């Protein structure tokens, strides 16, 4: 019996978290897991903080997790990692995309973008991995694949890299973006030892 594993994806509306979680969950279903996934729509989307939770195992009950429950927190944006850190298990793992997006108080100059977020998290979470998905996506030639690079890293961190992810990409993205996204996914996987 596989114990249910919990993944929390966090970021900012518009970063492609929904597609990222779709790729992940499609692969998990193909592998025969029971999967539940939870998103919040509506008002929260407008440039606000966004999370998706993905749970998988033999049989999953609740679609949502509570604080201290996520096996992996993967954050598409630096400050959001801190906002959602409370949901991580004490023994959990963090993947941080080195990408900063200012929120309204920061953009207007009323607050400063916080410094030292990554350092503080790394001091608290032993397994902290920082990736520069934007740089990798640019190298690949399409900055919009940043989210898929991050999913690649997540997949490797979960030890699921052996599944047929190329097939998953083919079934989840538009045909003309299949190749670049497969490259992005692999680039992400290579970020995790």
């Amino acid at each position, binding site marked *: 019996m596989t114990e249910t594993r919990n993944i929390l994806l966090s970021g900012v509306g518009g970063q492609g978290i929904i597609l990222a979680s779709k790729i992940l969950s499609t692969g998990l279903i193909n592998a025969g897991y029971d999967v*539940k996934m939870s998103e919040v*729509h509506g008002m929260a989307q407008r440039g*606000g903080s966004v999370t998706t939770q993905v749970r998988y195992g033999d049989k999953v009950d609740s679609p949502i997790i509570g*604080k201290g429950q996520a096996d992996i927190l993967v954050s598409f944006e630096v400050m959001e990692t801190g906002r959602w850190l*409370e949901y991580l298990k004490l023994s959990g793992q963090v993947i941080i995309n080195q990408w900063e997006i200012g929120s*309204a108080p*920061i953009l207007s100059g009323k607050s400063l973008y916080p410094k030292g977020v990554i350092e503080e998290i790394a001091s608290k979470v032993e397994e902290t991995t920082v990736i520069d998905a934007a740089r990798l996506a640019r190298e690949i030639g399409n900055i919009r694949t940043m989210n898929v690079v991050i999913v690649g890293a997540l997949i490797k961190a979960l030890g699921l890299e052996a599944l047929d992810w190329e097939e998953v990409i083919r079934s989840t993205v538009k045909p003309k973006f299949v190749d670049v996204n497969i490259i992005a996914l692999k680039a992400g996987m290579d970020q995790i030892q």
Partner: protein
Amino acid sequence: MKKLITGNEAVARGAYEAGVTYASAYPGTPSTEILENIGPYKEEIIAEWAPNEKVALESAFGASFAGARSLAAMKHVGVNVAADALMTMGYTGVRGGFVLVSADDPGCHSSQNEQDNRIFAKFAKVACIEPSDSQESKDFIKEAYKISEAFDVAVLFRMTTRVCHSKGLVAFEEREEREIIPYEKQIQKYIVAPAHAQRLHPIVEDKLKKLEAFSNETHLNVEEWHGSEIGIVTSGVAYTYAREVFKDTANYLKIGFSNPLPMDKIRAFSQKVKTLYVIEELEPFMEDQMKAAGIACIGKEKIPLTGELSPDVIEEAIFGKKPEFLSISEEKIVPRPPTLCAGCPHRGFFYALGKKKNVVVTGDIGCYTLGFADPLNAIDSVHCMGASISMGHGAQKAFKKHGVDKRIVSVIGDSTFLHTGVNSLLTVAYNGGNTVNVILDNRITAMTGHQENPGTGFTLQGAPAKEVNLEELVKAIGIEHVKTINPLKLKEVDTALEEAFAFDGPSVIITRWPCALKRYSEADIEEFGPLENQCHVIEDKCKGCRICTKTGCPAISFDNDKKKAFIDPNQCVGCMVCLQSCPFNAIERVVE
């Protein structure tokens, strides 16, 4: 083959499989995707956006009256709008199977309150069914139609945000076509004149007794025995949370059919356990009835009544066990409130309005609610759909009567205006109001994710439609001073407001520009054309005054080191509101 789908998608599939032929809704989070996912079944189901929830419910009731299986969907507060029709449907019953999907929002993720609409089912004397996940959302819809027709009763299908928007694996089945039930004139059933209504009431009470007997037998109310001394009565998504916490260390009575409650079954269950918990989200709907029936149980003494439940909320409530977790120092988390998008046509209007002194602004429900937030700070109230215009009217009357020198501006979106704002504007015109009413016409129902409405020219299923002419409509209502403007032009907005303030009588300003995220129709392209050339800051001219940041545009940031503003070319769409706000002409369009 199972598919990973949301509860809303599952309801749509269930309606398809159940042989539904008519569905109507008004969009509202978390219910919107139900009709959006029924839409593609064009051959089998007519799916429509109604202007409001009352119209949606009545239209679906009409299809049932004609003998077809029908569905209406709305968010919890939408049922308030539809309540007039619902309350009497309890008396009349139905002909074709009828389901009202009520999507409740515990935790107010996207709502103004967290009312528990199971109470509406009891109040209206209709059946209530509660699914706990996506598979049940599909299966229970099919059961709901059988129950509706077998007992001649409307079914309120109560979902919650987590059921609507969580995805689970669902097995699909074939559609079962339903012949229309032959029409028969039944005036004693469908004309609720007092003499008929008096006769219908005892019939309803008798029907509820039969439904309670059914509730005690149906597999929708299921026991799960694990040999424990603890028993849990639970329903909806709370069941999955309870399972997460107690796993197989408790016995469960999972209530899928919650009005009328299976009180005999609950009593028998309670007698076989030592400790009985009731774990339900929001109101003590089951608990109060159980306690009234003399069944001892632990409910809201421990389980929170307010806010959303979750596994850890339940664990802490029952076992006092606080979750252990890490956190980051507070100063490293800056709030990230939702904002109007870059290029949003509401921004220019609110920026100009926010400068007006001595003005009280009554707002409404939509993206433009965000006009209240910093740095725009341009709205004083937001209450419910349509209330901007009617609250504004009453406020202006009261101010005038008491000699208070303040002007009211009522601000409402196009879809919300057509929802209920029209009625409110009627009172303004008819009762001698003196408010400035602004219809923010962004050519779509934006906040819920771009649904068509009577002002957009298309139906839900993509057919061209009659497009209401807002200007002609408000003139027909009796508003004499009507002006249509481009909200991206600050001077135009300012002039329109000043003219409206100067006019002795009620006025309407229509700000007409598409939502920045809208996919333009051919008519849109013709009327508005593409926005061309982004804006950028000329650093030499920028004095660091930060006035452009007061527009609240997420594409503009202020560099505290350089003391200069910066426009993010990845976000700017060239609306030019910031350019007009700059007193030093330090923003210009990028010349290509």
